[in-house]
């Protein structure tokens, strides 16, 4: 009977092993990819669901972290999962600036913080006119809860405003 040419082995019977080096190489490469691409989230940008308009005119936000920008996050009371809640239709939960929470009716604190940030911007060498407020609101929040932010920013003397949206790729 001819010797099989399909199944041949030079190993003695009972000695079976496999090479783990390529597996370890792949695992290291994947870890390297995740380490390089992950970023620690900033406290100034809270997790919320931004509006995505048709043919978005949003310009990619500048990468610099200067204090010229004051980001006001408007958090929805409809929760962290992106769905609407008929019981809380459009209600906002709170405002957040740099991780600090401000109650909905507390317009005075909001104005005070914006005035302080505007003064800090002027003190750092820029002009007061350089300071801008970025309104970063959940799409589900009703307009009536955004108005106090606009009013407080105008009262604080901030003239420039940005509205955060999801950009088209």
């Amino acid at each position: 009977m001819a010797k099989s040419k399909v199944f041949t082995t030079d190993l003695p019977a009972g000695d079976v092993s496999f090479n783990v080096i390529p597996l370890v190489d792949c695992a290291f490469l994947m870890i390297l990819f995740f380490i390089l691409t992950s970023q620690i989230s900033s406290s100034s940008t809270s997790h919320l669901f931004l509006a995505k308009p048709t043919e978005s005119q949003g310009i990619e936000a500048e990468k610099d972290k200067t204090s010229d920008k004051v980001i006001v996050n408007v958090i929805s009371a409809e929760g962290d999962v992106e769905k609407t809640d008929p019981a809380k239709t459009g209600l906002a939960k709170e405002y957040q600036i740099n991780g600090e929470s401000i109650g909905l009716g507390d317009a005075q604190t909001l104005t005070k913080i914006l005035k302080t940030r505007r003064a800090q911007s002027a003190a750092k060498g820029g002009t007061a006119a350089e300071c801008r407020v970025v309104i970063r609101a959940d799409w589900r929040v009703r307009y009536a809860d955004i108005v106090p932010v606009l009013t407080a920013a105008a009262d604080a003397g901030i003239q420039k405003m940005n509205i955060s949206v999801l950009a088209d790729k």
Partner: protein
Amino acid sequence: METPTTHNQPPAEPPKRKVKAKPPPRYTPNVVPLIDVLFMLLLFFLLSTHFRQQEGDIPGSLPATGAGIVAVDKTVMKDIYIRIHATGEDRMNVMYEINGMNVSISSAKELYEILKQRQQALGSTESPVLIEPVSDVRWKFVVEAYNQAVRAHFKNIGFVPSSS
């Protein structure tokens, strides 16, 4: 003749074999814990990573005096009013009303077309566009109206305090 006797002599030693020197012992590290830790790290990153959508900012301006929230230059008097009403279940739809028009618009595309026509008819991008949402309109529809006005190249866009 006497034969020599050999039974008093000690037995001959067997010839010595040449023994190869054993190679020095090889110490290899156990890689199993390394692979375990590697998989734990990989699992952590796989579970904690989520890809963020790209954010952008639409620029605008606020009034310099701080009175109200309308920031438009009213020297050009032919302003465009966009009134937004919430409709539908959970206020998930809207109707846009533009002054001077008898029809209501429900889609962003139609809104853009009308704003573009108005801008071309006026021949100016400085005409003020005033957006007046009813207070319970969801923010995304207000942003949509603002976005379409920016897309139609209007430079003077403001918000009007809601009347209700």
